[in-house]
């Protein structure tokens, strides 16, 4: 019966498709049960989204944790795209450290793979609203640029590390305290160093320094908003150039990982000099320093750029 055959075949195909689909789906869902290395006694496996979180995690965790970082040195982290291997790392990590709203690709991967094991380190900090015009997120994500925020972040992740690796809890506690002390000292250096400055207006190539400005009573003027690769319009350049001329600002700051052309344009326009202020979104590939040394460098740059005494 040819007619019967004709109708049977599409049905068979449909059945096959459904079966294949079910198989695929079950294969996908099985990734949610992940073997934990901590429960088997080894170091806690930590995935840090970018450098300052890696710094906090290694300082606090020591040899009780093994940290991998998603953003390689020298890469601008805002527009990071994850490779499949990195998503797999996120899926199998014991703890994932990230800042929500900073790296869209990481936000997405965390939500899908590790929603229950991730720590959004900006949780529990006093967050600032995004400044400037046309920014995409309502909250400024650059929390790590205030040393005291780093101390809070360290104690949050230290607590989590200690629960995951109880054997090392005491050592982690000691290191957390030490880390907190070194951040308080850094904070004190900034407060003292920036107490008396000729100018309190901080012109930066993108709005990364909101927390730093807030902590030390500076006013941040970002040329291109929260995201560094947004090209400022001529209208914005004009606005900033006029402001620089009118208020007698002498230094325009640009960043290590972003093209300095825009800051350079304004500096040329106004006769100001340009200097590098590192937002610590990542270390330069050839850098030998760490969070502390870079922040101390930033302080020195700011002291000469803002004419502090």
């Amino acid at each position: 019966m040819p007619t019967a055959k004709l109708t049977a075949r599409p049905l068979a195909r449909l059945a096959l498709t459904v079966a294949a689909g079910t198989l695929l789906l079950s294969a996908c869902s099985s990734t949610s049960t992940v073997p934990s290395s901590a429960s088997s006694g080894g170091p806690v496996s930590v995935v840090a989204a970018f450098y300052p979180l890696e710094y906090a995690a290694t300082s606090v965790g020591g040899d009780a944790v093994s940290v991998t970082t998603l953003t390689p040195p020298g890469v601008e982290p805002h527009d990071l795209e994850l490779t499949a291997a990195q998503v797999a790392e996120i899926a199998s990590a014991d703890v994932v450290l990230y800042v929500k709203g900073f790296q869209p690709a990481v936000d997405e991967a965390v939500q899908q793979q590790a929603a229950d094991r991730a720590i959004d380190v900006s949780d529990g900090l006093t967050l600032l609203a995004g400044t400037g015009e046309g920014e995409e997120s309502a909250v400024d994500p650059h929390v790590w640029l205030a040393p005291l925020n780093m101390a809070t972040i360290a104690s949050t992740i230290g607590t989590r590390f200690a629960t995951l690796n109880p054997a090392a809890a005491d050592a982690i506690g000691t290191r957390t305290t030490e880390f907190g002390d070194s951040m308080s000292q850094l904070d004190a250096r900034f407060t003292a160093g920036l107490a008396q400055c000729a100018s309190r207006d901080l012109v930066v190539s993108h709005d990364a320094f909101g927390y730093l400005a807030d902590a030390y009573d500076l006013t941040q003027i970002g040329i291109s908003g929260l995201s560094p690769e947004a090209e400022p319009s001529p209208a914005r350049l004009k606005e900033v150039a006029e402001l620089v001329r009118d208020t007698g600002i002498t230094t325009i700051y640009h960043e290590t990982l972003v093209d300095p052309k825009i800051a350079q344009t304004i500096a040329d326009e106004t006769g100001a000099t340009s200097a590098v202020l590192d937002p610590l979104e990542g270390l330069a590939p050839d850098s030998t320093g760490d969070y502390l040394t870079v922040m101390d460098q930033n302080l020195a740059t700011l002291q000469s750029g803002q004419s502090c005494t």
Partner: protein
Amino acid sequence: MSLLDFDFMRRALVAAALVGLIAPLIGVFLVQRRLALLGDGMGHVALTGVGLAFLLGTAPIPTAMAAAVAGAFLIEFIRYRSRTAGDVALALLFYGGIAGGVMFASLAPGRAASSLNSYLFGSLSTVAEGDIWALALLCLGVVAVVAVLGRELFAVSLDADIAAVQGIRVRTMSTLMAVLAAVVVVVGMRVVGLLLVSAIMIVPVAAAQQVTRSFRATAVLAIVLGLTASLTGLVGSFYVEVPPGPTIVLVALLSFAVLAVVAVPIRRRRREVR
């Protein structure tokens, strides 16, 4: 403070004017030849050049130029040698160019991947003085070639077979046209970005064609429209906080819409006269 008090605006105005001038000049040949998308293909190939420049640490403009010119030869070769139709040859360039550009840029060390944006969408406000000289020189070259070989180029774009009968070397002229398009793309890369550069080549020409009949009149009006669009777009973005590249293209599209409406009674009258 007025617009011309700013060095960066003076440089941007010169760059925008250069592009507004030469892009429609080449575009008018491309439209006539039904290769309106050629410039877009070149833009994609130039992106590979930009990526390569990041990877090798060379200067982006010359490297993009080399890649786009190589692309120009390649597309003429594909069109001529294989049975591939022109639009498929273009498609090959589009995808190869974008994929190559993003690949090279992501292999390159450091900040490369984030700088790609300024080439995709233009960075008119940060054009340096050296760029201006390079752009001016390239524009001069394009204008000189059109002045000397315009007649031949026109014959080939009108009808390649007839041009061949007239003794014009059609393949050489086609390749030359593609090379000219490549030069314009690289010049326009800084102004509106590689993704939109083809628009200043094509849109003013399409707008001019609504009201003009002769090739020469179309070319002249297209250049006027191109200049107007690129300058008003840029000046607009000086007073209102909008990106210059897209503003320029939208102004050009607006001129198309206006002329298309204006053209309706003109065409009707012409038909009545006939």
